[in-house]
Structures are given as structure tokens and as C-alpha cells.
């Protein structure tokens, strides 16, 4: 058998903590997900690793779209997983679909 990955808990946001998280982090990466979504579950370990590697450079968090419909309507989310990217409190990009850690590291490095 192969070894399993390490578990690191990524901050779980709600409608009431979302805006503060965005303004508290110069760069914020928010993974919009739902428990029944297979690709979202595959994003989980990637976000955990990203959270660890980007510590102090960017804030990494998750948002359950099923429980926070107002946020998904606000950002017009129609597919998951979707990553919302913020810089200095401003929504600068929306990335749709599963991505590798390497792709995301490269992308965030360019922000």
C-alpha cells in the first residue's frame, strides 16, 4: 500500500467571516466547494498543502457553497470547485475546476 498525505485543517469560512478574511489577508485564496462534489474532495489535500506552503504569503480558506448560497450568488459561482482570488481586498480572478498544487503555486506567485 502507498502512504497517505498529511492532514492540515484549512480555515472554513461562512457568510459572516468571509469579508473579514478577505480584508485581513493581502492575498486570499478561497476554495468554493461542496461535500458531494468529487473534484472538490480531490482539491482538499491540494488546499491543505497550499495553506502550509503559502503561510504568511497568502490566506487560504474554504467555503461550502451549499451552506453559503449568498456568497455563491454574489460571485456568480455556477461550477465547483471554484477558487476566488483576492488581492488587497479586491476580487481579481475566478479559477474554475481542479488544479494541481504546482499550477496554483505558480499562479499565486504571479499575483
Amino acid at each position, binding site marked *: *500500500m*502507498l*502512504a*497517505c498525505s498529511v492532514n492540515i485543517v484549512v480555515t472554513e469560512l461562512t457568510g459572516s467571516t468571509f469579508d473579514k478574511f478577505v480584508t485581513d489577508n493581502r492575498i486570499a485564496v478561497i476554495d468554493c466547494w*461542496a461535500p*458531494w*462534489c*468529487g*473534484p*472538490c*474532495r*480531490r482539491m482538499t*489535500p*491540494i488546499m491543505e498543502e497550499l495553506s502550509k506552503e503559502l503561510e504568511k504569503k497568502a490566506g487560504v480558506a474554504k467555503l461550502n*457553497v*451549499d451552506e453559503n448560497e449568498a456568497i*455563491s450568488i454574489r460571485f*456568480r*459561482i*455556477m*461550477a*465547483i470547485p*471554484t477558487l476566488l482570488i483576492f488581492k488587497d481586498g479586491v476580487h481579481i480572478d*475566478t479559477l*474554475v*475546476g*481542479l*488544479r*494541481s*498544487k504546482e*499550477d496554483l503555486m505558480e499562479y499565486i506567485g504571479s499575483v
Partner: protein
Amino acid sequence: MNADVVIIGCGPAGLQAGIHSSRKKADTVIVGKIKNSALYDAHIENYFGIAGKTDGPVLLEKGLEQALSFGCRHIDMDVTRAAAEGSGFRITVESGEEIFCRSVVIATGISRMKLNIPGEKEFLGKGVSYCAECDCNFYKGLRVAVIGGGSKAALASELMTGYASVVYWVSKKISADKSLVNRALKTGVRPVTETPKVILGEDRVRLLLLEDGREIEVDGIFIELGGRSSADIAMDLGVMPEADDSVRINNKCETSVTGVFACGDITGEPWQLAKAVGEGAVAGLNAAGGVKGIK
């Protein structure tokens, strides 16, 4: 139905796994359609011992015949669901039939997801989706089209009738099992027998243009080609695929889950016949060895 080993996928990796598993006297069932193999649309000229060009279907049909001659059973259907059950696994096929087994070999190749038509890339996340299971909730009361002729599209169409106001099922040809098609039609899915050509809209999807010139007004388009994706089958069995949909294996073709093996294109590049066959042999031997207690 019970079996020692179920092999999901009927390409070169799956067939070779079947040959080695059945020659080890394991009761082996291969599930899958040879037409779904990437080899079906290819020809071979770089495989050991086969000179000149050989068409993929010729090789696949001979391989299937060979596997059957060693005692393999073959179910010519897609897998719609897989799950761990007790000390083994339950594999469900299009007709609803279930197979209970001790070991599973995933040999499904890499699933084709994209349709490659204009508008598909531009509207991803703005009306275009590749996962009805994930995104159904965003389309409550809206009009959607599901594209694809296989079991995945049939199931997605049926699922979407629980959310959308109208569900069009768009495909020139239907290859899904009749029972799945009937189930989808009974729920009110509207079949459209034509090939999709262009996805149109402004900031969101608005229209699906068909080859015959017809236009369908829709708010969402679900592209659901072929059968259940290889990544989803892996996840059903508790194996977490990589971001590129490949599955990690060790030198015994074992995955991270005991009793689940993988071989062929799903384990990563090079996507070559020789590599698929080699891994198929290893996976088949070890899957059969595991159930027979042979080290």
C-alpha cells in the same frame, strides 16, 4: 454475480490483466466496451513482435477472444458505480446488475472530458460544466442541455430533471444501455438527436447551436461524455487520483487501497500499448494472487 477479480476497462491493460488473472485460476470478470479504449481508434506499429500496421480493433478483439478462452467473463457495459463492501467490493453496471468481488483492477484509461467545440472553454463556469453531480444545485428552475451518448449522459440527464425546468439530452448517437435511456426518458428528459456545434452567449451561456442549424435556448450545458470517469471510479473505491486524473501505483500495481489495483493509461504517461500491457500483466497476477493467497 460473484467473482474473485473484476477488471474495469476493456482496453489492452484490462484485457492483459484478465488473461493473467484467469490463467492464475481466479474467477475473473472484465467489464467495459472495447470501443471505449483509446486503442480502438488507433493503429499499432511499435509493439514487440507485430510488424507493419495493425488496426486497434483487430488487436482488441483478438485480446478479448484470448481472455475469454482462458475463462474470463465479459460484460459489455459501462460501470456506473463502484464501492467497498465488507472485505471486498461491489461493482454496478449500466443494467443495474451488481458484481461482488475480492479484488478490483482499474484499467479504464484516461477519460475524455472535452467536446472541443467553440464556446466550451470560454463559458466554463459560466454555464458550461463537466460534472452534473457537482453543479446540479446551481441550475434550479433553469433550462439545461446534457451532451453525450453514453451512460454518464443518461444518468446526468435523469439527475438534472430533479433540478432544472427543462432538460435536453443532446447526442447524435446513444450508446447507453436501454434501461438507463428509458429511466431518463420517463423522468421527462427531452431527447435531441443531433450533434452540438457551438455554445453561444454573452457573459453566460444562452444558446446551443446544433449541426443542422437548430438553436436551443439554455442556461447551462453539461458535457458528460462516455461512462463514469476513471477518476470517479477510483474515488468510489477510496483511491484519491492526482490532479491530472492519474492514479499512483507501486511496482505491484497496487493503489493506496488494499485490493484495488490499477494499470494502463490511468497510471500516467507514457500512454503506450507496451506499457499498458506490461502493467496489465502485473496487475492481473497480483490481483489474482491476492485473492488466492499466493505471494
